[in-house]
């Protein structure tokens, strides 16, 4: 029924997961930086972060991806020699996809993290500084651990949308699960079968994610009294 395409598609699933995980790392970095910039006292940083989130949320993922994949390389090729860097810097499809998705979801995570940071009383940070901790220490020991709890619900949502967005990298030629399902559909002339397989596998990924993240939420909420009606 599947004409032996199943192993290929499962391999593609590994690529899909790798793209999603790697993009998440980059998105986390952009998100933390963006949220810190939005909450900083510098007007310039605030504006920069605001421009970033508005631009990203105003343009479709697919257009951004095509822009970065084709246009970004052209730009690097033009800029790098001017900076005295003669060697060709190559962005492969994997990196292009990961960078783009990471960059896009960094903007969404910026909002999630900003909300979470604001939910932590300022007094706690002040107390940390009063104890003689440096700013990074305050961030790592006081802000971050509590932020996780506040950010998790929003984060779950962002992650699910991110996983689904990775399907778009097939359009720029990365051979992820979607790309392989498409090739199998074309070769076998049975598109319904193979796109259904892809849909089921995506559903599996999202379902497992929801279960895992729910566990994480319980873990990080230990010691917090639940409001009960």
């Amino acid at each position: 029924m599947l004409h032996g395409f199943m192993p290929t598609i499962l391999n593609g699933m590994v690529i899909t997961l790798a793209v999603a995980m790697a993009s998440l790392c980059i998105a986390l970095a952009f998100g933390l930086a963006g949220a810190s910039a939005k909450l900083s006292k510098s007007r310039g940083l605030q504006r920069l972060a605001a421009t970033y989130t508005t631009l990203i949320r105003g343009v479709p993922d697919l257009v951004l991806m095509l822009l970065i994949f084709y246009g970004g390389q052209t730009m690097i090729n033009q800029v790098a020699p001017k900076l005295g860097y003669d060697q060709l810097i190559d962005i492969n499809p994997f990196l292009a996809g990961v960078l783009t998705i990471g960059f896009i979801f960094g903007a969404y995570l910026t909002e999630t993290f900003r909300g979470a940071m604001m939910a932590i009383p300022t007094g706690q940070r002040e107390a940390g500084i009063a104890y003689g901790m440096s700013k990074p220490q305050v961030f790592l020991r006081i802000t971050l651990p509590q932020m996780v709890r506040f950010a998790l619900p929003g984060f779950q949502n962002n992650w699910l949308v991110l996983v689904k967005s990775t399907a778009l990298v097939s359009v720029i030629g990365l051979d992820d699960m979607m790309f392989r399902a498409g090739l199998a559909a074309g070769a076998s002339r049975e598109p319904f079968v193979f796109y259904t397989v892809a849909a089921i596998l995506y559903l599996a990924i999202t379902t497992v994610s929801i279960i895992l993240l729910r566990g994480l939420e319980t873990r990080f909420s230990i010691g917090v009294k639940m409001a009960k009606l």
Partner: protein
Amino acid sequence: MNKLLGLLLTFLMSFVVNAQVDSKKLRIGVEGAYPPFSQMGADGKLVGFDIDIANAICKEMKADCTLVTQDFDGMIPGLLAKKIDAVIASMSITEERKRSVDFSEKYYQTPGRFVAKADSKLEVTTEGLKGKRIGVQRTSIHDRFASASFPKSEIVRYGKQDDVFLDMTAGRLDGAVVDSIAAAQGFLKTAGGRGYGFIGPVFNDPKFFGVGAGIAVRKSDTELRDQLSAAIKAIRSNGAYKKIQDKYFDFDVYTDGAAAIAPSKKK
């Protein structure tokens, strides 16, 4: 914090490959959805005439090649953006493309044909195809030819040739302008192509169809272009080419593949 940042940077940099501009390392753009020239088998491996030719040429040049799959409309932009160094994807050598890229000598030559339901009684002329939906692969010679020759038809553009055939069997297209061999072996011979056939004349106007399929490279890479041409010549003379040709076709695909294709069903 700084340590974290440093770690992240190293992690990122590990992805960025400093591709040496080295003739021994070649990234070749191929298609993967264009049987019998290039397609992905059930095991995820690329197979086809283009793929075998690419491997033979790399062996001849003693180059370390990576094959990069990409949709056809991304080939020239990818080449110009230095994402790939050469294109072996049945790309015809046309004057229009020569404005952007350079080509090696041809490695095969086949004409285009009009494919439709065998009993459709369509007349392949501007008037005969008026208002009809004609499928083509985006940016291919067939796209350019159909856009110029059938201005009164609706030209529907696809990323992959397979998708043109899928929509043809779905009945969304009245016809398609396709490479004769890609149509004959990739569609007409398969179960989905039953009831379809070639209609009208053979298209080989050099203005649109060029002088055969070559290997595209950037204009600045003249040395690579000459090496590729030499490699094609070498595999032609040492028998490697013939071996590959015989694996896929029972006719001479180098000079004119059309001669061997079954004659069109004349009505």
